[in-house]
């Protein structure tokens, strides 16, 4: 027997949550019901609760249909599994596209009448809504397994070994209802995703009927989502999770073109790589941007699966011609920059650490872009000294004062400036990783 009971969207016990026109979206039937309301012109305002993949995809598609959309997320940014700077980049894009996003606030209930929901009650006031989509997360359907005496894992999903066998002989389990193993940590994790469910299903099916045992050691939780003109992808551990797991991590944030810069149609992507400081083992990656993100995230997922370190990743022989990639692909460049940091060739600061340094006035932020670029938008409190004027104007930068943080658009000019200032005897210098391109906070 194979238990494949799947997972169900979680409906929180909020006041009046059973009002009409409050939906979850899991099945095609749900989607049809939502679409019908929109088709009939009944939806002017929508509230989406939850900033995970489903919530964001619904928000985008309602927006495409001309609906005024407000999305709530309880934690401080959308895409909770992602690191802050990547998630905020995606969040800014959603906002630019007109989705009203409110984070760090809570939906507490609903008001309405027999016709359906009218208002959403939140920690920041009431919001009118003709429709509400709840996308707070899913839970594994385990009641059948539980009542049969089948053991559950620490995540609450059904515990199986790598052959998809439960603790009861001849009962297998597969799909969204089973617990997985994270390949990086070797620990239990739960990834209710089609890509993982199909693997476990195939293995359970084969092992049920054949003596040729198949098995799954684990997965990386590799995911990707399209959000208007960008996509965001992730594999392995986030920086936050890696630290929680006890790794001493080194990270890097590198914007790059996805194809040759002279090839029309190339787009920018930002790669974040997370590695173990001691062994240089690659622990995870996140990629966001308008360009192609699925190819590099799959490359890195493959590398992590086979235990790659940064040195190995930086030398992968990847397909290159200008319409497809750059001579040194974004993944290789990210690995090389991280190795440069590790080898003390350059010091960097992640954008998420900069706002606090600006407020506390601990940093001297020097923007080395051209005057016109600085004029368009710049980091608050930063001063502009274009790279070509750096030597003649370096007297304006205090040598023994605060940390000098160099900013350009992607990092290349900041690196040149870093070398120049180091040569001039500046000791405490860093570059802003990701430059102005990946800086997701307020600009002036």
């Amino acid at each position, binding site marked *: 027997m194979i238990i494949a009971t799947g997972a169900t969207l979680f409906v929180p016990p909020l006041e009046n949550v059973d009002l009409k026109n409050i939906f979850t979206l899991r099945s095609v039937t749900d989607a049809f019901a939502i679409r019908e309301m929109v088709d009939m012109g009944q939806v002017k305002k929508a509230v989406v609760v939850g900033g995970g993949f489903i919530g964001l995809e619904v928000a985008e598609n309602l927006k495409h249909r001309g609906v005024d959309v407000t999305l709530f997320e309880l934690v401080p940014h959308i895409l909770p599994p992602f690191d802050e700077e990547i998630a905020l980049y995606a969040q800014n894009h959603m906002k630019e596209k007109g989705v009203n996003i409110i984070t760090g606030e809570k939906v507490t209930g609903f008001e309405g009448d027999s016709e359906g929901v009218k208002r959403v009650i939140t920690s920041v006031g009431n919001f009118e809504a003709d429709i509400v989509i709840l996308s707070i997360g899913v839970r594994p359907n385990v009641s059948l397994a539980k009542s049969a005496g089948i053991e559950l894992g620490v995540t609450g999903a059904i515990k199986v070994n790598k052959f998809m066998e439960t603790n009861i002989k001849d009962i297998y389990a597969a799909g969204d209802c089973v617990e997985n193993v994270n390949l990086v940590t070797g620990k239990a994790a739960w990834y209710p995703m089609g890509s993982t469910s199909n693997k476990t299903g195939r293995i359970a099916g084969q092992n049920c009927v054949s003596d040729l045992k198949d098995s799954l050691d684990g997965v990386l939780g590799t995911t990707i989502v399209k959000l208007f003109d960008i996509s965001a992808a992730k594999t392995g551990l986030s920086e936050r999770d890696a630290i929680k797991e006890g790794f001493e991590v080194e990270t890097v944030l590198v914007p790059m073109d996805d194809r040759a810069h002279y090839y029309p149609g190339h787009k920018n992507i930002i790669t974040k790589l997370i590695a173990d400081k001691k062994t240089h083992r690659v622990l995870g990656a996140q990629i966001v941007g308008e360009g192609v993100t699925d190819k590099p995230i799959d490359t890195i997922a493959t590398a992590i699966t086979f235990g790659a370190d940064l040195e190995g990743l930086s030398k992968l022989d990847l397909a290159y011609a200008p319409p497809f990639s750059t001579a040194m692909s974004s993944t290789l460049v990210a690995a090389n920059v991280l190795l440069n940091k590790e080898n003390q060739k350059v010091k960097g600061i992640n954008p998420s650490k900069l706002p606090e340094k600006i407020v506390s006035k601990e940093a001297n932020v020097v923007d080395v872009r*051209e005057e016109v670029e600085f004029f368009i938008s710049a980091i608050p409190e930063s001063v502009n000294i274009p790279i070509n004027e750096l030597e003649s104007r370096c007297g304006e930068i205090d040598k023994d004062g605060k940390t000098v943080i160099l900013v350009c*658009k992607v990092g290349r000019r900041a690196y040149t400036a870093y070398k120049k200032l180091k040569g001039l005897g500046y000791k405490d210098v860093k570059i802003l990783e990701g430059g102005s391109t990946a800086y997701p906070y307020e600009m002036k």
Partner: protein
Amino acid sequence: MAEKFINARGLQCPGPIVELFKTVKSSESGDVITIEVTDCGFKKDIAAWCKKTGNELVNLEENDGAVKAVIKKL
């Protein structure tokens, strides 16, 4: 009123916006400048720049990966 054309195809950041800045600086009020760019960051830059300077973004279109912007100097 003069009409000017800048071919900034193939130039990387900050090439295109710097070229445009120089041309606009040396132009008269009412001059129309057309620039073609393949750098992917330009589209956002040009919109923000026009908004801040008050120069008019007459047209902005993207074709086969190249951006063509038409600007009228304030």
